[in-house]
């Protein structure tokens, strides 16, 4: 079946502009994660959605970052007033449920964001 998809694959934007990154999880997966991978670094947790529960936003680095998940499926990560330090690969992952999410996170191919 189809895996996690993300769009766009690459995004170049000017400093100060807003950007939206999209994630389509695997159909039926209730848990969705966003991670950020800066150059030469491991992945950094940003935000977690589980069903209709309030999201865990503890990893968002600043109030310029926000995310929503509509209808329990597609998620959008929005970065306002982008800065050069926001340049990174943004990865999305989904899992079947909160419990099995412990063992099964399926990652998308990521969006490479470059802020000039």
């Amino acid at each position: 079946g189809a895996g996690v998809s993300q769009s766009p694959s690459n995004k170049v934007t000017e400093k100060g502009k807003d950007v939206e990154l999209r994630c389509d999880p695997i159909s039926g997966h209730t848990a969705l994660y966003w991670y950020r991978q800066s150059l030469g670094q491991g992945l950094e947790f940003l935000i977690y959605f589980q069903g209709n529960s309030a999201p865990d936003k503890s990893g968002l680095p600043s109030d310029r970052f926000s995310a929503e998940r509509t209808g329990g499926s597609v998620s959008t990560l929005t970065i306002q007033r982008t800065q050069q330090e926001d340049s990174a690969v943004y990865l999305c992952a989904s899992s079947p449920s909160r419990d099995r999410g412990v063992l099964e996170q399926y990652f998308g191919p990521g969006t490479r964001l470059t802020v000039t």
Partner: protein
Amino acid sequence: AQTVTQSQPEMSVQEAETVTLSCTYDTSESNYYLFWYKQPPSRQMILVIRQEAYKQQNATENRFSVNFQKAAKSFSLKISDSQLGDTAMYFCAFMTHSGAGSYQLTFGKGTKLSVIP
């Protein structure tokens, strides 16, 4: 806070040989999970192997196996009979249940593995 340390930024191995990637972690939790992920140039993170901390037996998946030393907080990955397709970044990751209710993965900075023909 949990931390994951991978002390080898880069490694290389001859095709068909065996290589071991190191990982140490720090946590006060007693129940947690450990993972090795592979990230080829395509950027897709792929789960290689996982280990539940309460299991004493080391996990194995075909050519991949781990050496889990809970007391030492060490979790190394051994790749046997290395293949060219094993060339990738390898990330060690730790997971536990956060106070906010989610299961978060904490990653190390990765080891770049090159398999040489």
